């Protein structure tokens, strides 16, 4: 966590291969990520990373089911099959009945759950969440974090960028960033025991 402008989103984008970095080295899954071309980056993102954004970033003209299924489309999985899988994941986030609604017809919390289902569907190794609760009220925020918590328990690493103290206390480990430099590194023991 860190205050705005501290560089936490930039770090997350670098981890997500959405942005380039100027110095240092970044290993993802044991592989040095440097000067990848767009196609390689796209494949890596598709297979190993899942994204959750503050502004949800769902495609407005696609319904919840199609949004969730989209990563599988880019893996070349057939429509029928990917829709079945997408439905499973929507069910996991409790939105089975909303599958055929457009993002515009969903509440903020529901949209974020759709986004989480989309991030999960490709069975990534890491979920990157950039201020996932930034546009949500505190009750919904809690539900979303709870959901990400459950995801984490299935063995997927979840990295959350936030500037809210309440949210950070719900994680296993808090890394503080200030002016682009990593500072305190706190392991939250009580969550580990949970």
């Amino acid at each position: 966590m860190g205050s705005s402008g501290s560089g936490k989103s930039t770090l997350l984008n670098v981890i997500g291969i959405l942005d380039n970095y100027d110095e240092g080295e970044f290993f993802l899954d044991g592989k040095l990520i440097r000067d990848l071309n767009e196609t390689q980056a796209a494949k890596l993102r598709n297979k190993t990373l899942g994204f959750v954004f503050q502004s949800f970033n769902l495609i407005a003209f696609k319904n919840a089911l199609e949004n969730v299924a989209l990563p599988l489309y880019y893996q070349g999985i057939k429509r029928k099959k990917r829709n079945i899988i997408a439905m499973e994941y929507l069910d996991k986030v409790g939105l089975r009945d909303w599958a055929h609604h457009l993002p515009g017809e969903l509440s903020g919390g529901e949209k974020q759950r759709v986004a989480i289902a989309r991030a999960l569907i490709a069975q990534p190794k890491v979920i990157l969440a950039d201020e996932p609760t930034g546009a949500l009220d505190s009750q919904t925020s809690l539900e979303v974090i709870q959901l990400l918590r459950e995801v984490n328990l299935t063995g997927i690493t979840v990295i959350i960028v936030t500037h809210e103290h309440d949210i950070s206390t719900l994680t296993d480990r808090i890394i503080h960033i200030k002016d682009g430099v990593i500072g305190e590194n706190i392991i939250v023991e009580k969550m580990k025991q949970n």
Partner: protein
Amino acid sequence: MFDLDKWQEIFATIRKNKLRTFLTGFSVAWGIFMLIVLLGSGNGLQNGVEYQFKSDATNTIWLNPGSTTMAFKGMKPGRQINFTNEDYMFVKENIPGVEEISARYYFWENRIISYKKQFGSFDLICVHPDMQVIEKIIIDQGRKLNQIDLLRNRKVVIIGLPVKEALFKNGENPLGEYIRVNGVPFKVVGVFTDRSDRDQQRLYLPISTAQMIFNGGNKIHNLTITTNVSVEESEVLEQTLRTKLAKLHRFNSEDKSALYIGNTLKEFKQFQNMFMGIKLFVTVIGLFTIIAGVVGVSNIMIIVVNERTKEIGIRKAIGATPWSVIFLIIFESVIITAFAGYFGLVGGIGLLELVNKFMPASDFFRNPEVDFNIAVSATLVLVLSGMLAGLFPAIKAARIRPVIALRDE
């Protein structure tokens, strides 16, 4: 390329962005539609006038005697000039550049034609055989009039198809039958058609027979010649004819109303020039219509890509490769322009067909048609330009780093 899933993804995008699709499509369809209608109308105009011209030979000069308006060598103006068989012979033998020549002798009154109990009134035109070439008649049954008919003053006649239909009911064969022309029996030796409907409502008789039977003496009403010379030379020929006939008939060669001369060569040339102008005009407008369509498509494609920057960012974040982004945009544009172009094409041709079917062919408008190759190429040009117009913004979009695209609001 023919991955069904990719197409489904594109069609889904098209279906869900109806307004955008409609606007792109409409500009293309409208451009093609206008182009087709424009080209078709231009051709219709040309076909109409050309058809009119081509019902007769387009290299004829005709001479009609009139009455003088100028005094000449002591003779008062107002004197009637008359042609006779000698004028026919004179022009035929003394004027170089004459190919076919025929005199005409008309009946102005008592044109009663009958067969058994059927009567009709049609134009009776008494001619030399050459007239059949000049009028470009097409023999439907039997034969044309020939030189022997003339030499022997045979009482034979060829009749136009409408004449046959009026006189010979129940599909009787007219050949060899005798019809009465002002009470005199003439044997039908041929039935003809002519591209000009008015020129079909006629009977052609050998001029020598007619002069003999109907007290024509050696009088003729008109001389028509064809020539194979150029337009410029035909004007010289015109002048020669005027001077020589003026001398023969003793009138002032400047006196235009003593002798009327028509020159279809010159008229046809003028029409050809006019149509070249119209064609050029239509082509230029057509080109500009296409350019307008291309600009329209390009504009919309640029807007579309800008509008979709965020969507592209999202797609890239979840694993879209640059190529898949380019493919998505290009093929969307190609599909829309191809379909819209097709609709414009069908609409335009449909309209022309309707006009063709329900508007009677007139002398000025006939058979509006479009060169199908031109129509299809125009559509292809638009589709291709839609593709190019989409390509550059698509490549640009595919190159943007996803983080920038995602930031785009």
